């Protein structure tokens, strides 16, 4: 392979040899103006691992409440008690939202000021009892940490009880960017810090609960902070090994104005490619179409991503923050995104068991 940016040559050599990339390599990938050079290396690695396969899941999101004790600067979703638009779902409501044709339900919500842990436990148990075939992916490490802050329930106990109630995996949210500087600047110091976030994922992995990891990028973070974030995740994966998917989340600008515009597609493509190359111990890297938009998500499947998330019947958080993609993208639209990229759609469940290959 030839590159217009010759700094990519040694990275290509390492990628071919299966050698681990370092921090400097990560920065080079994110800085390079040879967008397609970065993409070609990542595509090579993705293709070696997964061939033409691109995964999707028939799923929906449930957001139990938007009440939240935190006030993170990047969030357009949270409400305070009494605010217009604040809501709290009953367990009955939520059970009614889960249908038999779904493989996965993804449950993430605000840090509710009063709901006891038992409410969450009953929520999982009720959904699991009503729809035992639907896999439940629920609660970010930030929410698990909040059960400790609010109720002094240790994460090991919370996760053990939730698993007994029917929880099968955990989403990767709440990581934001692992940077004390940004936690102060963007007012998310009240949330699990990087050590705590990683600790809780490690506990989950120890209990046999698979998890994802996210990174919120495209706001006021530096490229070095992105690389450090990914390296921290790589270190955690070396130690506990339970991460399934890395999900970079492009910051949405519509309601909170940390930056005037969403980061351009080339930056998202480079970030996905760099993630595929740096996170050599993560099975999957996702092009999350809700935050990227369908065009960029589809292109990203040639830049190292092997997953597009799913049909997502409801995605309140990103939509209230202004994501412009249509809610509830049908399976046919996912097929188009995947096939336009020249890839083969593979339906999966929450744990990446293959349901069907669509040739």
């Amino acid at each position, binding site marked *: 392979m030839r590159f*217009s940016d010759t700094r990519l040559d040694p990275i290509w050599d390492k990628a071919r040899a299966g050698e681990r990339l370092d921090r400097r390599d990560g920065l080079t990938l994110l800085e390079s103006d040879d967008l397609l050079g970065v993409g070609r290396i990542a595509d090579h690695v993705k293709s070696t691992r997964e061939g033409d396969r691109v995964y999707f899941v028939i799923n929906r999101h449930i957001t139990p409440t938007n009440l939240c004790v935190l006030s993170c600067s990047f969030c357009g979703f949270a409400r305070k008690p009494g605010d217009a638009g604040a809501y709290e779902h009953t367990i009955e409501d939520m059970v009614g939202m889960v249908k038999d044709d779904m493989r996965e339900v993804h449950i993430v919500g605000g840090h509710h000021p009063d709901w006891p842990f038992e409410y969450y436990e009953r929520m999982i148990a009720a959904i699991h009892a009503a729809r035992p075939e639907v896999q439940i992916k629920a609660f970010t490490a930030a929410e698990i940490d909040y059960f400790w802050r609010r109720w002094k329930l240790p994460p090991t106990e919370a996760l053990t009880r939730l698993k007994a109630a029917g929880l099968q995996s955990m989403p990767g949210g709440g990581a934001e960017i692992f940077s004390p500087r940004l936690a102060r600047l963007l007012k998310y110091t009240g949330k699990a810090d990087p050590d705590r976030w990683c600790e809780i994922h490690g506990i989950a992995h120890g209990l046999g609960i698979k998890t994802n990891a996210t990174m919120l990028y495209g706001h006021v973070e530096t490229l070095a902070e992105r690389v450090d974030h990914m390296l921290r995740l790589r270190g955690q994966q070396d130690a506990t090994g339970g991460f399934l998917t890395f999900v970079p989340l492009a910051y949405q600008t519509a309601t909170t104005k940390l930056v005037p515009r969403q980061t351009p597609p080339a930056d998202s493509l480079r970030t996905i490619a760099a993630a595929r190359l740096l996170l050599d111990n993560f099975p999957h890297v996702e092009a999350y179409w809700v935050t990227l938009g369908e065009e960029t998500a589809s*292109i990203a499947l040639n830049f190292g991503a092997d997953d597009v998330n799913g049909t997502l019947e409801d995605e309140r958080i990103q939509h209230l923050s202004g994501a412009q993609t249509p809610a509830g993208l049908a399976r046919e639209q996912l097929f188009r995104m995947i096939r336009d990229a020249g890839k083969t759609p593979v339906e999966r469940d929450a744990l990446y068991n293959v349901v069907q290959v669509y040739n």
Partner: protein
Amino acid sequence: MLDQIRDKTLNGKRLDREEGRWLLTDAPLLEVGALANEARLVRHPERVVTFVIDTNPNYTNVCITDCQFCAFYRKPGDKEAWTLTVDEVLAKVEFAASKGATTVLLQGGHNPALPLDYYLTLVRETRSRFPQVTPHFFTASEIRTMAQVAGITFEDVLDHLWEAGQRTIPGGGAEVLSERVRTRIEPKKGGPEAWLSVHRAAHRRGFKSTATMMYGHVEQVDDLLDHFDAIRTLQDEHAGFTAFVPWSFKPGNTLLEKWIKHYKGPNAYLRMLAVSRLYLDNFPHVQASWFSEGKQAGQVALHFGADDWGGTLFEENVHKAAAYVNTITVDEIVTLIREAGFTPAQRTTEYEILQRY
């Protein structure tokens, strides 16, 4: 195959049909894109991306040609049929000029009720009243219609337009220049030669024009290769094409919608652009169509061999009729080009740079 194509491309040798076929079908997308970007930087070493301040109004939607891909036209006598007067069209030109436009791309249906003088007056009045605006008027098939109505040859029409002050011709109406495709989707418009002969005569007369392609309907790879071969051969004759502008067919509200529900996606578009940069080795410019493919795909396209962003398109009605709408401002164009890592520059219709940003 890739090494062979790379070697030929960078040594100024022409790609053959089998190489084109491989690029369009089997070549890894990013390899095609990287090579196209390399070829683009050989031709235009500066990382400049041009754009034009333009508008794309229409003078009539009356048309007798019944193309199956068109949601814009109405038959003569239809309740929704309309034709603008010369003054109404000139008011649109005046408005565009007041917004800084240097190009007005004016086109319309094939309306047999309009005399040749209507068209010539539009050109003359635009030239005299708005000298800063280039009248980029009338596609090949409209020129053929004028000739039929006036009972003269299209070469004569071109002479009249030239004398009225016109110097460039838009490239619309090419669709896919293959007999099979044109017979299927636009049987009344004539085969490839109907479009090619007008551009050939125009180039010989001294006009510049663009070549377009609307893909993503009934065409197969050989049809696309026919199209590329036809315009590359014509370009060898007089070098009259400034740019190649492909876009994807939008099926909304058209007869073809019954069979084709969705337009081709961004990866197909990026491949088309990149292959055109490599195969059309005698075309100076390849345009990224933010308008038809979206701003995100447009930005990425600048890394796949495109060196032009197209225009502001203050007004556009043809895609709109197919329920597809997109708008932009000059500020946003400048921002988008910069975000993609290039220097924005405003150009004229004939690709002369007016100012860099």
